[in-house]
């Protein structure tokens, strides 16, 4: 039992504890638990080479193998940071069946952390599925009008993708005799597990399909706007900030190193889809009358950058992609929170219901502006670094891609600023003036950490990037090395043939 186990298992304990806490104390309990977990998880920063490897099921040999590295460290911290924030934004918003709500929220945290630290494919799948259940309930019970449709759609989409991944995991096990990620990886590296190109491609596609739905990559994104619009604020925040990263994390962690040849073979059309998503998401976002939908489509656009960076197979591209995962988690999470703040005051998500909000609520307007600018990618704020690195990485591969992707950056300025203008400027209507009040202390407390992070991540990347780069270099090495080795292996045969 080390620190990592504690961070992983504390949410589970918290979830069980919450079931027995009296109803009125549940939100305070959830806040204390999630803050406690966050504090504990901060200690991970110092020592990120922890791991535990214990048997769980004897046959087939499934192990409780968890570990943390530069890639998962920040995603775990993002999860533990956003959970107490999600509790804080739900404080007043969730007024019925509170206990269940907070219990599901903490259970979700458990699943998410588990996904990021599992080093056993089977364990990974277990956590992957566990995440589904609490999110399904969060959307379905506490969402808006079309919540049931959105919840079921969310569940079925993800389920359909993940069953194929399960088939691929079982197949890998049958070939290699283990579920352990590092063991399978070393078998592939040393050539003990040699997959035929066709098999490798099919396995890659099974994993990729499951991750692509989660990212979501165009054209598999249609569940996302529904889920986001219907979810309660906390649900949207967790969904956008952390859950979507499960997909991109899976791509980096599993798809690239395990199936490097297939990944290289498919890179061109995946990148094309990513760029399509960047532009399509931005264009659709521009015409949305609904704020949440606008932010949701902007997510499709932003995550296109992440996928583009991953499949550039360059150090910069990959670093940028991982950094952009965190950036998107911080800034889009903040956007959803702020939209939630507006909704709590005016009970509408339509942009047209607002206008002139800056007059009665200047602080809210300022915070919203900073977040908007961060989302657009203004230098000195976080998204700029990520997008820049991704574009730099993609430039090594193709300038045409960069040109198209850059259009997405421009478009993001259009839709975000336009929404900002329509919402906050102009003359305040009577309804707005009547309902709007400025940020409360609780709201400040929830948003300030994210604003601080936007500035920090945008100006002092040294805190975050070295650990990410180090791990990415390893992943890239695995991805490239195999390519070279396979080529070398083939060469003598070819020579002999001649």
């Amino acid at each position, binding site marked *: 039992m080390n620190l990592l186990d504690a961070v992983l298992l504390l949410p589970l304990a918290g979830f069980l504890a919450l079931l027995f806490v009296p109803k009125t104390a549940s939100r305070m309990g959830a806040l204390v638990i999630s803050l406690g977990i966050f504090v504990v998880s901060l200690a991970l920063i110092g020592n990120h080479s922890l791991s535990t490897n214990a048997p769980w099921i004897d046959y087939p040999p499934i192990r409780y193998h968890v570990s943390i590295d530069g890639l998962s460290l920040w995603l775990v911290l993002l999860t533990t940071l956003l959970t107490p924030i999600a509790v804080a934004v739900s404080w007043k918003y969730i007024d019925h069946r509170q206990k269940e709500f907070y219990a599901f929220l903490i259970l979700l945290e458990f699943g998410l952390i588990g996904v990021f630290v599992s080093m056993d494919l089977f364990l990974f799948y277990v956590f992957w599925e566990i995440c589904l259940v609490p999110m399904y309930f969060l959307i379905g019970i506490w969402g808006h009008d079309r919540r049931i449709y959105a919840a079921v759609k969310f569940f079925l989409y993800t389920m359909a993708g993940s069953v194929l991944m*399960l088939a691929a995991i079982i197949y890998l*096990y049958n070939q290699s005799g283990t579920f352990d990620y590092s063991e399978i990886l070393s078998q592939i590296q040393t050539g003990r597990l040699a997959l035929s190109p066709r098999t490798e491609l099919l396995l890659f596609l099974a994993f990729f399909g499951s991750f692509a739905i989660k990212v979501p990559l165009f054209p598999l994104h249609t569940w996302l706007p529904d889920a986001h619009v219907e979810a309660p604020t906390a649900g949207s925040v967790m969904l956008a900030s952390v859950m979507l990263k499960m997909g991109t994390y899976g791509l980096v962690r599993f798809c690239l190193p395990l199936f490097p040849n297939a990944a290289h073979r498919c890179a061109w059309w995946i990148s094309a889809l990513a760029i399509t998503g960047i532009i399509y998401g931005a264009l659709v976002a521009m015409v949305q009358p609904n704020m949440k939908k606008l932010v949701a489509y902007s997510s499709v656009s932003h995550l296109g950058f992440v996928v583009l960076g991953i499949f550039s197979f360059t150090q910069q591209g990959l670093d940028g992609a991982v950094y952009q995962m965190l950036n998107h988690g911080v800034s889009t999470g903040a956007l959803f929170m702020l939209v939630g703040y507006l909704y709590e005051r005016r009970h509408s998500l339509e942009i047209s219901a607002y206008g002139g909000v800056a007059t009665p609520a200047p602080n809210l307007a300022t915070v919203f502006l900073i977040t908007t600018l961060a989302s657009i990618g203004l230098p000195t704020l976080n998204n700029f670094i990520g997008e820049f690195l991704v574009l730099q990485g993609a430039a090594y591969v193709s300038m045409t891609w960069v040109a198209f992707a850059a259009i997405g950056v421009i478009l993001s300025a259009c839709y975000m600023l336009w929404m900002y203008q329509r919402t906050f400027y102009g003359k305040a209507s009577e309804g707005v003036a009547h309902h709007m009040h400025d940020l409360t202390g609780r709201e400040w407390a929830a948003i300030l950490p994210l604003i601080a992070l936007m500035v920090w991540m945008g100006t002092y990347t040294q805190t975050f990037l070295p650990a990410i780069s180090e791990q990415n270099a390893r992943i890239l090495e695995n991805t490239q090395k195999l390519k070279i080795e396979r080529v070398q292996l083939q060469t003598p045969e070819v020579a002999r043939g001649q």
Partner: protein
Amino acid sequence: MDSSLFPTSAEYFRILPEMILTVVATLIMFLEAILKDWQKRVFAPIALAGLTAALVAAIAANGSQGTAFHDMLVIDGFATFFRVLVIAVGMLAVFASTEYLKREAHPGGEFYALVLFCVTGQCVMATANELIMIFIGLEISSIASYILAGYLRDDARNNEAALKYFLLGSFATAFLLFGVAWIYGYTGSTNLMEIRRQLETPGGPSVLITGTAAALMFVGFAFKISAAPFQVWAPDVYQGAPAPVSGFLSVGPKAAAFAILLRTYLTAFAPISRQWVPVLWICALATMIVGNFAAIQQSNIKRLLAYSSIAHAGYVLVAVTANSEIGSAAAMFYLAAYAFTNFGAFAVVTHVARKGERYTKVEDFAGLAQKQPAMAAMLTIFLLSLIGVPLTGGFFGKFYIFKAALDSHLVWLTVLGLLNSAVAAYYYLRILVVMYMKDPEPSEALPPAGPALQIAVYGSAIATLVLGIFPSFVLDFASKAALK
């Protein structure tokens, strides 16, 4: 020959569970005639005591494995696994039924006697080593279950269920018997091992004839496991029968029928597997598809669970199709996980249906999470297990089955089966939706569940979770006991 004319005491010991069950069931029938009405409360405890004794005897008999009565029965790990399983299901059925019978004003000893007889038949099926014993076990179990399905004799739905079950069941059994006759005619034996030896000998009975016989027998088995295209009875029977009986019928007899299917096809008919594997392949896929796609349409929860149980029979058939030791172990594990899960779901339905079973629509579960959160949570566990979400028995069951299928290179069946399980998620989610996301409609008050029913529900839920979190114990046993 003459020295073995009389069974040894070891042989009696091996069939002790069946003997205990028969004696206790007969005792209950006697007491039914003697006891006064107010004394009839003792039947459930007596039945439970009998089942517990049989359970202990079944576990003890595993220590002295071997055949009995001239190889007619065989007690091995496989038989023990299924005996323990069906006896446990019988105990759950007793727990779930006592309050139900009181509620429907039909308390009576014969119900428990019938459950015990039914379990006896299933135990015989689990241990049968030759075709006649298979037939006898099947009939003991079936006849008891026909009556159970129509137990509330004043209820028209019960009568319909029993009649349909009986007519179609007898018809299917006739096919089975016809197949048995063919096999006997061509091999001169009813012993499974002997049949296998005959089929393995070069120049033995023609594959065409034995294959046809195997197919005829499969009709009988497929009916009992409700595999497509012999599944049409299941929805009507499960919907019409008393809810706890439906739960019992959907797991106990099914598990036992799979036991004989596995034993016959993996031992006696192993030499002709090239003939029957493709048939089972198609049958498994058809069963999954029919079950899942029909379940999507249902508005009655008993009917929905009936179709879902058809689909689950399809998953187990995938394991049988794998035709391997791993497949056999996977089927055993799945049947155990499925038994507790599905019975638990029916137990909750029993509770929510209220007197006269007037509330069996899916909408009648609206707001259950607010009215009785504990019951809703338990049903959630069962439904998640039926979907196959990790940390429930249903997930590991599916996992082992599809692992076995991939081991046997059934890639397409695996992919289609997994996609089927994604489709299935849809209709299970519908129940979760109404339970958690709809507000309760004003309707008749739902009294809290009685203690016996609670034991049945919580017991099933605990078993489902234990099989999902610590599956090693059961799986190890199944792997060692699997048919080779």
